[in-house]
């Protein structure tokens, strides 16, 4: 994405509708019952996305970002997964309370998902045409022939060369970037209102990453969809996202409009993430790394989950779980959309 595009995106929500957001997750909890105990993967996550808006969910492995997404899609394995508490409001209805058959009709047609590894996420024994066409056949009741024609159209749309000739090819016959385009085409097929992209570029070459991200952003803009972009890569986020939610240990630790977070993080964990990005202007210096390891989900530390790794941890951090505080400027003026789950957010932000 070019610089010009970027500046045009900055004034955040592009077409925020009046009233309810497209998707609103409220106090979501997810746990997995394993042989060794209960793994608490998500512990009270709330976020929202509006039409045309891009929310980036950031966090390392095990932070609960993908599990949250799977809960929204309704593709958690249950059991062992369980949602003891929470609401997922999509266009005003709670998906968790929908009958299974109603929820199924939402999947794919209103909410779609793009997975990380397109090679394993596409069925190796069906042609890409059949897998794309399946969306139209199942949700729209189209004939095989019409569905294939639609598949070709979709492949054209995601800029796969010679779409007509390649519609009968199998996933393994495509390159990594092309496969990810097919995944995107599949998600876009029925023009859903919301797309969840789970690390859509992580498995790709750096050179291809940008192309795929651009394509995704372009299609999102055209169709005015909400987009949840799950990633651990702060670099990807800067170009496309409107707002960011940083997750750690199954909770949101910081929320902010995208550019503010780079200049003024309000949580020590976010600070750590930013410091660990290699920067050209600091060539030769030792790269910063957050000390320690992500929390064990079977036994999350008491108080703030980040406390064992936090350079600024105090006694209170080991006993009290910090809530997501609304963050204000030093003089008390509000900072809209910003929040931090740190007892010492003031020191972090203003110190």
């Amino acid at each position, binding site marked *: 994405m070019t610089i010009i595009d970027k500046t045009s995106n900055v004034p955040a929500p592009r077409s925020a509708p009046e009233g309810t957001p497209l998707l609103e997750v409220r106090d979501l909890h997810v746990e997995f019952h394993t042989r060794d105990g209960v793994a608490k993967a998500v512990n009270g996550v709330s976020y929202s996305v509006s039409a045309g808006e891009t929310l980036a969910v950031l966090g390392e492995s095990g932070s609960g970002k993908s599990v949250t997404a799977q809960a929204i*899609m309704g*593709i958690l394995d249950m059991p062992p997964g369980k949602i003891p508490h929470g609401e997922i409001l999509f266009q005003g209805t709670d998906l968790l309370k929908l009958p299974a058959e109603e929820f*199924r*009709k*939402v*999947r*794919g*047609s209103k909410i*779609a*998902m793009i*997975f990380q*590894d397109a090679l*394993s*996420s*596409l*069925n*190796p*024994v*069906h042609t890409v045409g059949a897998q794309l066409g*399946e*969306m139209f056949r*199942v*949700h729209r009741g189209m004939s095989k022939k019409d569905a294939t024609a639609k598949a070709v159209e979709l492949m054209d749309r995601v800029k796969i060369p010679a779409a007509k000739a390649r519609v009968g090819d*199998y996933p*393994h*016959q495509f390159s990594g970037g092309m496969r990810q385009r097919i995944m995107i085409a*599949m998600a876009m097929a029925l023009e859903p209102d919301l797309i969840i992209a789970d690390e859509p570029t992580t498995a790709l070459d750096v050179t291809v990453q940008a192309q795929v991200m651009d394509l995704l952003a372009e299609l999102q803009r055209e169709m005015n969809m909400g987009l949840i972009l799950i990633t651990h890569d702060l670099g990807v986020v800067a170009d496309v996202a409107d707002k960011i939610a940083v997750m750690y240990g199954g909770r949101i630790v910081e929320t902010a409009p995208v550019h503010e977070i780079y200049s003024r993080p309000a949580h020590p964990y976010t600070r750590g993430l930013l410091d660990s990005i290699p920067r050209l202007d600091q060539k030769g210096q030792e790269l910063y790394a957050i000390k320690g390891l992500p929390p064990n989900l079977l036994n999350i530390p008491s108080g703030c989950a980040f406390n064992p790794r936090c350079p600024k941890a105090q006694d209170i951090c080991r006993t009290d779980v910090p809530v997501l505080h609304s963050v204000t400027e030093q003089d008390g003026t509000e900072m809209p959309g910003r929040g931090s789950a740190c007892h010492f957010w003031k020191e972090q932000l203003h110190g």
Partner: protein
Amino acid sequence: MGRYLIRRLIQAIPVLLGATFLIYLLTFAMPGADPIQLLAGEKKADPLVAAMLREKYHLDDPFLLQYWNYITGVFQGDFGETLSGRKVLDMITEAFPYTMNLAIVAFVIEAIVGVVAGIMAALRRGKFIDQLVLISTLLVISIPVFVTGFVLQLTLGVKLKNEWGIDFFSPSFNEADGFRAYLLPAFVLASTSLAYVARLTRTSLMETMRADYVRTATAKGLPRRRVVVNHGLRNAMIPIVTFLGADLGGLMGGAVITERIFNIHGVGGLLAKSVYLKEGAVVVGGVTLLVLVYLIANLIVDLLYAVLDPRIRYA
């Protein structure tokens, strides 16, 4: 696709030659396997007659040459003669249809019952039906075929008629009953493999249901049935087909016991008898035929494999 098949075909040739050679070696080069003396029985063989027979059957040729003559004969449809002058091919073609019918009926039972039981168990993992399939297959695998055979013969073949008045299965094979005559023996023959197929299907389907592409299929909003059949089962079938194909040969070879219990005059019985009687030519001929069936079944599996898995087809 064509190249793949030709490669598999070429690979089958050394196996066929090797297996027949091994059988030939075991039959004719084992100690105590002088066919002339065996024919003569207790008496000392007349040296003149013996020499004549040796000449006629090329018994004095080097072993490798004997084998070569034999195998080239086989490819021209000549399986040789027994020392008493009967054509081996005639004996085999007489017995072959029984074994083939038995194996095919067993194969169908094995494939249908095994796969269905496996699917039900996999989709209700940990539930009653799953436990039932796991335990019953464990029992079936543990009970030797001849025990299963006798027990079913007594219960279904005898008791059902004598005590319940249902005359459906017969305790011994009766050709006049046609297809029905094969049901009980075929079920016995299929029992062990059936249990393996059920377990393999269960594991294979459970594994594919965890695959990323099945998750994708669910995320696409496909109905559960379509997810299971088109995405789970379709991929899970690949190892099952391999097992089934390899087992067709095994069923024919394993028919020895079933044929004996139910008194069916098939290839198994013929071979068992010929081993006792040291009728080398029949043994080699019969086993060669079974090896051929095994190899053809494997070729069909390879073909199916390529149909089922495009990654192989285009490799």
